[in-house]
């Protein structure tokens, strides 16, 4: 049987439905962001783990120029090695019918018989290639989808300088290419970069690797020490052109996936924390008000012998219902958003299938924290009510004590109307309440700032990268290191305006125990096409000696300009050089290390060789240039700046901005929740006074003025405060979210400030309309004839 108190509870919920819904929306917003991130995080995490397990993703990797088969046995004999598998891989160029842009890729061998023991592929369609046929390939899903390739289609390819027609027999994914990015890039490009698999026999024949291999995959025994094994592998493959053994942490796809997961975890912590703070504040105010209006009811209950605990439980139920409603909305909304986001992740993280996980324990934690947050909010109001002896509480509430305020004395010279005095005194009489209202508005503003500043920041990021840093139209990678003559050859192509030579060398930078794998790029001192920029985005000249590092890398290696770093040349030589760090650069996308070309060539000691060209072209002759470049045997791959820009917006940009958009939207919801409640409470507390004014002959508009002017004052303080808080939170967010993939620059434009203020003001207007309608329908007689 439902008790009388429960009936009362239900009626109150119905009576307060507007406020209940507003609070539930705020709570729901916080919970939704939290759940979205949790669902994404655990879905991606579980999907990755299960994929890695079921497809035997390797623990360690070594790439080299060429190693004889017998070395594989030595690898298998190393301590800690569970499995090892050798394979052949090489870069290639592709031509796809109907697509003129240059396409580069990598072709990886599969065992002639059976499945690979490590890095198994997942066949989406078709079959594995037949080792007796030299032209059969399996294509990665991202590329197949981009070009609508199906088993039976054909591709033209240049492998090891030889042109051949390949037949697609299957479409597949692989745990080592979950995040498919061209070498040297930070961004996926599904149209212009492909991964292919071919049977080992034909691929070895095509690349002159019969009886040899150039890539080893290793899985470790449980308990094996990775660094120890990597050192052993380096020792074993020294002299075979090894670029250095590396673990999963340095494997590109894994690394980016981990970064993404790390960011999701950050999002799952930071945003809900902010949203929940706002919700607690709201609960506190609303419940406080509710309890205040029920002081006589509480007194009567207590007079009849209900204990504090029983009365508390009653209100705890009320709060719990509101919180649970919000949490329910949040969980459902968050799971739905998480599902939608997972669809987007599935587009650029290539998993065979996306597992969908709602993590039970964290979800339970969200529910518990949510309810506790609400109860904390109610606690203060209840303990105030309990302190009152029943007899006193049953009598009429004495008029609240006011006094002349310091602000009034400060404004003594100015004539204030009585309504203005009412506003000022009520704000000053309850400084804590005023502070909380201002904080609520400020936090709402801050959340919107946090959501929207990133739009401008991402634009700045792109602008810096693609119009200040990378000013070349194309980057041409050469098949083998060449002399500077290659630049002269390319610049003669019709449509090429300028070509600058550069040298990119894989290295591992070390400082004490910290290290980082990166391409060290040598640029000509007078480079006009590739610039480095400082924190003010001004161009930084290349030093004659020493290396420039991305700020992120300076931090990761814990070095400062003037310090020495060790450069390990990942060319199999095992040689090292000491180089001085000459400065830092501000790149928002990727990390890098640069030095003057002659200095790099000197350190390498291999003469004046280069392996990349940055070129600028006549935009009208783009396709001619591309055709001419692809016809040149020295060209290994061509990447275009424009394509990178597109790729950025298509992948990272899109996900990031979607996330951001969702946050801004929820920020708007919070803003509304906070302001609506502020207005409703103010209206409830003022009802009697406002009615008195109406009876005295004040027009409805004059009475509205009191409510709205108070709100305006609160916003006048709250919004700028929100900008400040938003800025601080943004700094925190940027700091937490920085990764080697990208760093969001801190940028506050008028647009961000304006947009956040607009969202808050719109919420206020909407709430204001509610208030105005209430004032218009105020039942004057009812209000005035009853004792409050």
């Amino acid at each position, binding site marked *: 049987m439902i008790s009388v108190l429960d009936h009362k509870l239900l009626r109150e919920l119905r009576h307060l439905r507007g406020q209940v819904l507003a609070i539930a929306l705020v709570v729901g917003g916080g919970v939704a962001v939290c759940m979205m991130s949790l669902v994404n995080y655990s879905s991606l995490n579980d999907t990755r783990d299960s994929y890695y397990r079921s497809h035997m993703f390797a623990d360690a990797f070594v790439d080299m120029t060429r190693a004889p088969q017998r070395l594989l046995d030595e690898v298998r004999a190393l301590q800690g090695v569970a499995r090892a598998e050798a394979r052949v891989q090489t870069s290639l160029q592709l031509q796809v019918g109907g697509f003129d842009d240059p396409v580069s890729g990598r072709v990886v061998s599969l065992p002639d018989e059976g499945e690979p023991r490590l890095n198994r592929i997942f066949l989406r369609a078709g079959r594995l290639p037949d080792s007796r046929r030299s032209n059969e390939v399996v294509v990665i899903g991202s590329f197949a989808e981009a070009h609508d390739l199906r088993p039976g289609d054909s591709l033209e390819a240049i492998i090891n300088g030889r042109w051949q027609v390949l037949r697609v027999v299957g479409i597949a994914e692989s745990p080592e290419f979950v995040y498919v990015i061209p070498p040297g890039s930070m961004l996926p490009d599904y149209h212009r970069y492909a991964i292919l698999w071919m049977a080992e026999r034909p691929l070895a024949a095509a690349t002159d690797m019969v009886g040899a291999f150039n890539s080893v995959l290793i899985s470790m025994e449980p308990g094996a020490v990775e660094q120890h094994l990597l050192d052993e592998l380096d020792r074993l493959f020294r002299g075979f052109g090894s670029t250095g053994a590396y673990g999963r942490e340095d494997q590109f796809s894994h690394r980016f996936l981990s970064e993404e997961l790390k960011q999701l975890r950050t999002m799952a912590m930071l945003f809900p924390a902010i949203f929940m703070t706002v919700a607690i504040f709201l609960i506190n105010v609303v419940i406080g008000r509710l309890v205040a209006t029920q002081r006589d009811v509480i007194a009567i209950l207590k007079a009849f012998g209900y204990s504090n605990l029983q009365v508390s439980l009653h209100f705890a139920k009320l709060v719990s219902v509101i919180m649970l409603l919000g949490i329910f909305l949040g969980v459902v909304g968050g799971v739905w958003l998480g599902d939608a986001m997972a669809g987007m992740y599935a587009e650029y993280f290539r998993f065979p299938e996306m597992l969908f996980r709602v993590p039970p324990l964290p979800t339970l934690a969200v529910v518990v924290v949510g309810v506790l947050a609400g109860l904390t909010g109610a606690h203060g109001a209840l303990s105030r009510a309990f302190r009152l002896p029943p007899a006193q509480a049953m009598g*009429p509430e*004495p*008029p*609240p*004590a*006011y*006094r002349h305020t310091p602000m009034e004395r400060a404004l003594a010279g100015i004539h204030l*109307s*009585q*309504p203005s*005095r*009412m506003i000022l*005194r*009520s704000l000053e*009489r309850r400084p804590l309440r005023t502070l909380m209202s201002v904080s609520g508005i400020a936090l709402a503003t801050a959340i919107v700032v946090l959501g929207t500043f990133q739009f401008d920041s991402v634009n700045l990021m792109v602008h810096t990268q693609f119009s200040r840093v990378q000013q070349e139209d194309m980057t041409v990678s050469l098949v083998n290191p060449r002399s500077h003559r290659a630049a002269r050859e390319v610049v003669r192509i019709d449509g090429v305006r300028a070509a600058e030579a550069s040298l990119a060398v894989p290295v591992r930078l070390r400082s004490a125990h910290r290290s980082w794998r990166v391409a060290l790029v040598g640029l000509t001192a007078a480079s006009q096409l590739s610039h480095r920029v400082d924190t003010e985005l001004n161009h930084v000249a290349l030093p004659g000696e020493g290396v420039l590092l991305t700020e992120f890398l300076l931090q990761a290696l814990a070095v400062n300009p003037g310090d020495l770093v060790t450069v390990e040349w990942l060319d199999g030589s095992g040689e090292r050089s000491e180089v001085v760090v000459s400065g830092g650069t501000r790149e928002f996308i990727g990390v890098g290390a640069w030095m003057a070309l002659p200095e790099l060539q000197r350190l390498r000691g291999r003469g004046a060789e280069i392996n990349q060209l940055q070129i600028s072209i006549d935009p009208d002759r783009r396709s001619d240039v591309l055709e001419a470049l692809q016809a040149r045997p020295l060209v290994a791959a061509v990447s275009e700046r424009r394509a990178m820009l597109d790729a950025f917006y298509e992948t990272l940009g899109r996900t990031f901005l979607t996330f951001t958009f969702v946050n801004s939207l929820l920020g708007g919801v919070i803003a509304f929740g906070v302001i609506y409640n502020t207005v409703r409470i103010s209206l409830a507390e003022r009802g*009697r*006074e406002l*009615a*008195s*004014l*109406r*009876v*005295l*002959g*004040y*027009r*409805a508009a*004059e009475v509205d003025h009191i409510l709205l002017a108070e709100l305006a004052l609160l916003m006048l303080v709250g919004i700028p405060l929100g900008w400040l808080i938003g800025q601080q939170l943004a700094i925190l967010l940027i700091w937490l979210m920085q990764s080697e993939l990208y760093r969001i620059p801190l940028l506050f434009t008028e647009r961000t400030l304006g947009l956040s203020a607009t969202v808050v003001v719109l919420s206020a207007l909407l709430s204001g309309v509610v208030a105005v309608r209430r004032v218009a329908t105020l039942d*004057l*007689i009812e209000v*005035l*004839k*009853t*004792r409050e």
Partner: protein
Amino acid sequence: MTETVFEARGLTKVYGEGELAVHALRGVDIELYAGEIVVLLGASGSGKSTLLNILGGLDTASGGTVRYRALDLVAASERQLTRYRRDHVGFVFQFYNLIASLTARENVAVATEIAPDPMDPDEALAMVDLQSRGHHFPAELSGGEQQRVAIARAISKRPAVLLCDEPTGALDSKTGVRVLEALARVNRELGTATVIITHNAGIAAMADRVITLSDGHISEVRCNTERADPAGLSW
């Protein structure tokens, strides 16, 4: 006592509809004259508050006519009623309805600031013997004092009529007498037509006329030959 301030004919008021309809007024004919004090007596639910609210422009009639001088209160718009309250009517309620955040003087100023021909707030406070308490907030005043501030606020605009709904209802006899004295003084000095609702028959002696309502009708109109001084009243 010739000018007619209010004139109502066949005034009805129905709350709700159908079977649930409550007939608060069932055809009331009444006139009120300038400068007189009228006491409305009646049991709870007799319709006296409804009548007062309609006269004061706080409520509208369901049928009949009611005029304040030339203004038809039944046909008046919301805006006209607001204007009417602002310029011509003063109200005093049982629960004083002072604004807690304003001092006594400021509570009076709330009314004078929007009135066309107000008296000085201090003058209004003086009329209720509270000139020395002008800087006190409601929380610092006794119940009787708060009600006198409410009277000062109501009369500070020099209204033609003062409508009081149970002005002494929340007060003890001694304090109530001081409030009634204030009302009598205002009536005497400003000539404000005053209607006082009470269920306390003892107050009737201070009126020129005593009108009794029962069940939505006027059941009795009695004229006092001589108005009693409130100081001599007790209940």
